[in-house]
């Protein structure tokens, strides 16, 4: 990290005096390093310096028109926002989809702000529900349905397909199975699943952007059926993907599976983060800290909280009958995240890629049952078949 006491030299040609001042227009345009020793000196080189501004403004305009005019797609809905990577939203979104009246909906579906009163009621508690045999059966059913929907989404992943198209299919697939797509209107989330591309860590909103060759895409599916939610996600390759990206996806999957391997009664929830971080770090990757796994059954998100990083203070010990998710988000670069102005899309601050995998698990007497496991192809994650 650069020291703030580094000596800076004046930009003016032939002037090597100490520079303590900066051009404000350059700051605004994002041009680095326009340091000058004095206003006079700056004025002296103004004639040539202002050309830098002109060039930068021209570039900006070019980009903007290119992005905005293309078939009415708006890729700069938040002027002034500095994207951390290459990804931009592709607006406008299609209007919020509706779900037929005969399908059982969670309490937040019709709430104007998408708030879940049942979740709010239990906010802050760390008591973990032990599911009855009936509850467990219902969880098996809904988890299987969620898996079916993810498998359908997986088949669509290829260059040229937009994330909105995938979302539409997901929406229809849920309805066909008599399920409500849990993300829809959850705290006003506008779509039926989350699609997270490259530097998006999670909660990406499906939009008009066509998938590009070389992208990695995570599709996160949660469905609600018969009063219970089932949640899973997988990261897929789009076309031909770089080796580095493949390593990230592979490692992330391993992090999840290693954590799952340790799940059994008596294990503390806080331990999972130690396992995940150890493996991620061993491969040169970092673990996202801001988002965690969670209890899931009648509520979408509830106790326990399952952080994925090491040395966390998660409360709770696994017992038979507990149901929760593990969903590590692993990054090529730093773990720090930032949220887009849409209030949902979480991206890495350094703009580098992030991958994720998730399962819903049931703690059994001897270990755990992966409720959202894939039933075909030997239970392999889709990306393994894509290699």
């Amino acid at each position, binding site marked *: 990290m650069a020291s703030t006491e580094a000596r800076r030299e004046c930009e003016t040609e032939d002037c090597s005096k100490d520079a303590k001042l900066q051009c404000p227009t350059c700051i605004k345009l994002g041009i680095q390093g326009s340091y000058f020793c004095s206003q006079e000196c700056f004025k002296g080189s103004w004639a040539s310096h202002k050309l830098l501004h002109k060039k930068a403004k021209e570039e900006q305009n070019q980009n903007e028109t290119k992005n905005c005019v293309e078939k009415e797609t708006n890729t700069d809905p938040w002027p002034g926002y500095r994207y951390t990577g290459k990804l931009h939203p592709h607006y406008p979104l299609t209007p919020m989809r509706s779900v037929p009246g005969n399908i059982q909906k969670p309490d937040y579906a019709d709430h104007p702000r998408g708030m879940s009163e049942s979740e709010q009621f239990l906010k802050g508690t760390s008591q973990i529900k032990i599911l009855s045999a009936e509850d467990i059966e219902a969880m098996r059913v809904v988890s299987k349905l969620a898996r079916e929907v993810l498998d359908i989404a997986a088949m669509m992943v290829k260059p040229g397909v937009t994330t909105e198209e995938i979302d539409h299919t997901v929406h229809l697939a849920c309805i066909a199975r008599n399920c409500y797509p849990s993300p829809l209107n959850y705290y006003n989330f506008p779509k039926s699943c989350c699609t997270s591309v490259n530097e998006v860590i999670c909660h990406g909103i499906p939009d008009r952007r066509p998938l590009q060759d070389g992208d990695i895409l995570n599709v996160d599916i949660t469905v609600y059926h018969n009063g219970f939610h089932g949640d899973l996600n997988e990261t897929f390759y789009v076309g031909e993907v770089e080796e580095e990206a493949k390593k990230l996806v592979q490692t992330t999957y391993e992090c999840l599976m290693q954590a799952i391997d340790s799940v059994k009664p008596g294990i503390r929830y806080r331990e999972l983060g130690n396992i995940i971080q150890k493996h991620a770090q061993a491969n040169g990757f970092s673990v996202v800290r801001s988002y965690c*796994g969670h209890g899931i059954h009648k509520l979408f*998100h509830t106790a326990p909280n399952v952080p994925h990083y090491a040395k966390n203070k998660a409360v709770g010990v696994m017992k038979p009958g507990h149901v929760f998710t593990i969903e590590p988000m692993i990054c090529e670069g730093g773990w720090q995240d930032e*949220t887009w102005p849409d209030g949902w899309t979480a991206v890495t601050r350094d703009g580098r890629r992030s991958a994720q995998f998730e399962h819903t698990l049931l703690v059994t007497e001897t270990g755990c049952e992966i409720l959202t496991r894939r039933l075909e192809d030997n239970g392999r994650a889709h990306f393994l078949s894509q290699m």
Partner: protein
Amino acid sequence: MEEEDDCPELVPIDPKPPVSSVGQIPVTIITGYLGAGKTTLLNYILTEQHNKRIAVILNEFGEGSALEKSLAVSQAGELYEEWLELRNGCLCCSVKDNGLKAIENLMEKKGKFDYILLETTGLADPGAVASMFWVDAELGSDIYLDGIVTVIDAKYGLQQLSEEKAEGLLNEAARQIALADLTIINKTDLVSGEDLDRVKDTVRSINGLVKIVETQRSRVDLSEVLDLHSFDTENAANLSEKLHLMRSPHPHLDKSILTVTFEVPGDLSEDALNLFVQDLLWEKLFLNKGGQPMTVIRLKGIVALAGKDHQVMLQGVHELYELNETPERWEENVRINRLVFIGRNLDKDVLQEHFLARVLHKLDN
């Protein structure tokens, strides 16, 4: 719209704020009944520390329904309002509390504060508020929980503490004392020396470890209130000393919150200690002689872990707990474990027995 050809006025180089947590910002939670003098204390702090940039949040964070919350910032004697955006988005699979994130976001945009003071309502559980800010060090937050300060009225405090609550319900005033790192007994000019002593004794019996300061009109030496470092290892030596001098206080009220303390020489097994604390805090496994489960509200201790040179600090608030190595070494000092438990239905004998049986390091392991 500036003329493109006009040469603008240069500005001083703005050094990028350091990403690492040099200069973390302390959060102090101020609690107490209405009328005890919390607001007076707050105003006093703001006036006395007029050179610092202090954020004041009133009434903690509501029940998740507000999208914005106002925050007052005091700087150079001026008070102005800022808005915290309690972002929508996924509240439940997010590790950091909404309120905490909102403060961090604000600081990123508008610069860091020197102190953050949070005044809670009289009925709020300061422990729950504290949990919001007692984040894992791994999260690299700029904010850390400095301490909980409870203001109690010298004249009416005793009455509030003695108030009978319906079966099972906690006396909030007692809980505020239980969780306090500092208790300010205010309005001492309104009571006799005897009465004041009674209040002090009662406070002591609930929380044997808390620092007590007496004030009139909430006027207090700010070095007593700020920079307490009650939740981290900076004041480890201090805690060590306090524990050394502590004796189990006698309960004064026929109330269930009290302080229990014991010391045990020898080394502990880290795993066994974790299990013990989890059984105590999470599973509420230990029962007192009356068969009621012991509920610990606050837990503090300095322990000697087998194989570790350094003294280890144990901290707990409700169910959250942490073990942290302190910079203090045992060296020639006798390796001895001192623990303080504050809560309901505590039974020293039962606790100590369980502790001795399960946590002491067995040499043959």
